[in-house]
C-alpha cells in the first residue's frame, strides 16, 4: 500500500505549473495558430478514420443540388435558353460550386448542444482555459480539409455530366478563397447563437425551423437570388444568409464585379463582428445559467 502523503509531502507546496510558451503579442499569436493547427490535425486524423461514411454522406448531400440543377436547366431551355440571367451551363456552375460551399459552411447544429450538456462534454470544455467556440471552429475546419479532397472527384463527375460554364478572373478565385472561410465563420456564429438558446429551454424546434427556412429562401441555397422577387433580393441584402451562401458561389462563378466582391467581403466582416459580439454576450449568460442549474 502506498504510504499516506498529505501535508508532510516533501514536494514544494504550490510548485509552479508547467512552463508555457510565454506571454506577449507574438507568443499569443503563436499560441492561437498552434491551437488551431493542433485541433485541425486531430479533426483530420479523426475524419480519415471515417472516410467511407464521409463519402457516402457527401454523395447523399449532392442529391439536393442535382435536383435543383435539373429542374432549373429544364426551365431555362424551355424559356429559350436562359432564366433570370442564368444559362443551363451557368446553372451547372452555380450548383456545382454550391456543393462545395454547402459542405464548407456546415457548422455545429443547435441540436448538438443538448447532447453536449447532457453527456457532460460541456463540463470538460468549461474546465479548459480556452473558449469552446475555438474547438468547434478549428475542429470543423479540419473536417473541411477532408471534405475538399473528397469533393474534387464529385465535382469532376458533375462537370462531366452537366457541362458548367465559368467566366473566372484571378480576383474571383482570391475573393472566393477568403469568402468561403468568412461564410463558414459567419454561419458558425449564428448556429452557435441558436444552440445557446437550449441553455434556457429545449423546446425551440420551431425557432430553429424558422431560421433554416429563412436561410433556405434568402441565402441562395434553393435558387439563385436573381430568380427571387425584387423585395426578397433587397431583404436578402440586409440579412446575413446571403453572405454565407450566394456570395461565395457567385464570386467563384464570375458573376460579380469587383465592387460587389469587395462589398460582399465587407458585409461578411460586418456580420461576423455583430454575431461574434452577440455570441460573446450570450455565452456569458449561458455559462451563468449552466453553472446555476448544474450539468
Amino acid at each position, binding site marked *: 500500500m502506498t504510504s499516506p502523503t498529505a501535508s508532510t509531502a516533501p514536494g514544494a507546496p504550490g510548485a509552479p505549473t508547467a*512552463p508555457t510558451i510565454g506571454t506577449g503579442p507574438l507568443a499569443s499569436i503563436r499560441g492561437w495558430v*498552434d491551437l488551431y493547427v493542433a485541433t485541425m490535425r486531430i479533426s483530420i486524423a479523426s475524419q480519415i478514420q471515417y472516410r467511407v461514411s464521409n463519402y457516402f454522406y457527401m454523395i447523399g448531400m449532392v442529391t439536393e443540388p442535382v435536383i435543383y440543377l435539373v429542374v432549373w436547366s429544364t426551365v431555362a431551355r424551355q424559356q429559350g435558353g436562359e432564366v433570370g440571367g442564368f444559362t443551363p451551363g451557368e446553372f451547372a456552375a452555380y450548383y456545382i460550386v454550391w456543393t462545395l460551399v454547402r459542405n464548407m459552411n456546415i457548422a455545429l447544429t443547435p441540436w448538438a448542444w443538448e447532447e453536449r450538456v447532457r453527456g457532460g462534454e460541456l463540463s470538460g470544455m468549461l*474546465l479548459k482555459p480556452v473558449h469552446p467556440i475555438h474547438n468547434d471552429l478549428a475542429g470543423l475546419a479540419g473536417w473541411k480539409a477532408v471534405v475538399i479532397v473528397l469533393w474534387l472527384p464529385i465535382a469532376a463527375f458533375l462537370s462531366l455530366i452537366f457541362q458548367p460554364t465559368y467566366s473566372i478572373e484571378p480576383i474571383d478565385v482570391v475573393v472566393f478563397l477568403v469568402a468561403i472561410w468568412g461564410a463558414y465563420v459567419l454561419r458558425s456564429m449564428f448556429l452557435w447563437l441558436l444552440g445557446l438558446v437550449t441553455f434556457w429551454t429545449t423546446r425551440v424546434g420551431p425557432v430553429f425551423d424558422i431560421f433554416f427556412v429563412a436561410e433556405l429562401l434568402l441565402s441562395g441555397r434553393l435558387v439563385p437570388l436573381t430568380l427571387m422577387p425584387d423585395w426578397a433580393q433587397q431583404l436578402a441584402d440586409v440579412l446575413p444568409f446571403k453572405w454565407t451562401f450566394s456570395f461565395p458561389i457567385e464570386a467563384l462563378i464570375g458573376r460579380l464585379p469587383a465592387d460587389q466582391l469587395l462589398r460582399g467581403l465587407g458585409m461578411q466582416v460586418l456580420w461576423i463582428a455583430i454575431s461574434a459580439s452577440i455570441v460573446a454576450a450570450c455565452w456569458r449568460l449561458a455559462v451563468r445559467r449552466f453553472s446555476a442549474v448544474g450539468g
Partner: protein
Amino acid sequence: MPEPAIRVADLRKTFRVPVREAGLAAAARSLFRREHRDVHAVDGVSFTIEPGEVVGFLGPNGAGKTTTLKMLSGLLYPTAGEAIVLGNVPSRRQSDFLRRITMVMGNRNQLQWDLPALDSFELIRAIYRLEPTAFRQTRDEFIDLLDLRELVSKPVRNLSLGERMKMEFVGALLHRPQVLFLDEPTLGLDVTMQKRIRSFVAEYNRRFGATVLLTSHYMADVQALCRRVIVIHHGRILFDGALADLSTRFDSTKTIGVTLRDGTADLSAYGEVLSTEEGRTLLRVSRGDAPDVTTRLLRDLPVLDLTIEDPPIEDVIERVFADARDERPTAGAVAGGGRE
C-alpha cells in the same frame, strides 16, 4: 504561513427543481401553476485546505461531494457563501485559474476516441500553451510512471477501462496543475489498476506539492492517500479531521481478535461475537472496556494470539451516515446545528 490552497466559507448550492404529481389533472394544473422544490445540495460548508494537502471528501451518493467539487472548479455558481481556490474565485473561470487546476471525473472522457492518446496529449499541449520541450519531458515521465509506453500509440477505443483511465490522468496532469479535484477517479477499476492510480496521485503530490481533494467510495483510496478526511452528508459537514480520529469520534468500540490454543470456545461472555472463522473469534467490545476484557481473556483462557483493532473504516463511515440518518447528535461533529 502560506495562504490556504482552498478556502470555503458557508458555501451553499440550492437547486430549484420542478415537482409534479402523476396524472392528467396534475399535468393540466402544471400548465397554469408550476410548482418547484428547493434542494439544498450543499448547505453551509466551510473548510480550508493547505497547499500540498491530500484530503478525502467522503459521503454517500447525493451528499453534495460532486456539487462542492464543481463549485470549487468553477463549473457551478454557488448560491451563497465564499469559495477561494489558489486566490481565485472559481466561478469567474479566469484562464489563469483554469490553467492551475484540473478535475478528473471517473466517468468522463477528454481523450479522442478514435485516435492514439498521444494525439490528444498534443492537443492538450496546444490548449495550455505548454513549452514543447518541457511538455515532452513531463509527458514521457508520466507515461513511464504509469507504464503506458506500449499503449500510447493505440487508438483509445482499443484500450481497457483501466488503461483509458491512466491515459486520462496523464492528460489531466500534463499542465502540472497545482490543485487536483478527483471525483471517483478509480470508479469501476480492478484492484491492481486502483493501486496504480493511487501510487501515481501520491507520486504527483510528492513531486509537485499539489493539493488534492479526492472523493471515492473505495476506502482503500482514502486510506492510501489521505491523512485528513472531510465527511459530508445532506450537504453538511459531519466531520473534518484526521482519518485516524474518525473511528475514535464515531465508533466507541474496539474489535478484539482471539485465537485459542485448544480451538474455539464460546466467548459471548466477553463481548459481542462478530464471527468465528478458522479458530479465530472476533469480539466487539466498547472502547472503554477493551483493556479489562483483554486482561480477562488472557487470564481465563489459553490464548495463542490476540489483537486489538479499530473497526474497519468502512464500518465507521457507515455508522457516521447511519447516525446522520437517525438525526442523532454525533459526538465531536463539526457541522453547526441540526437540519431544519
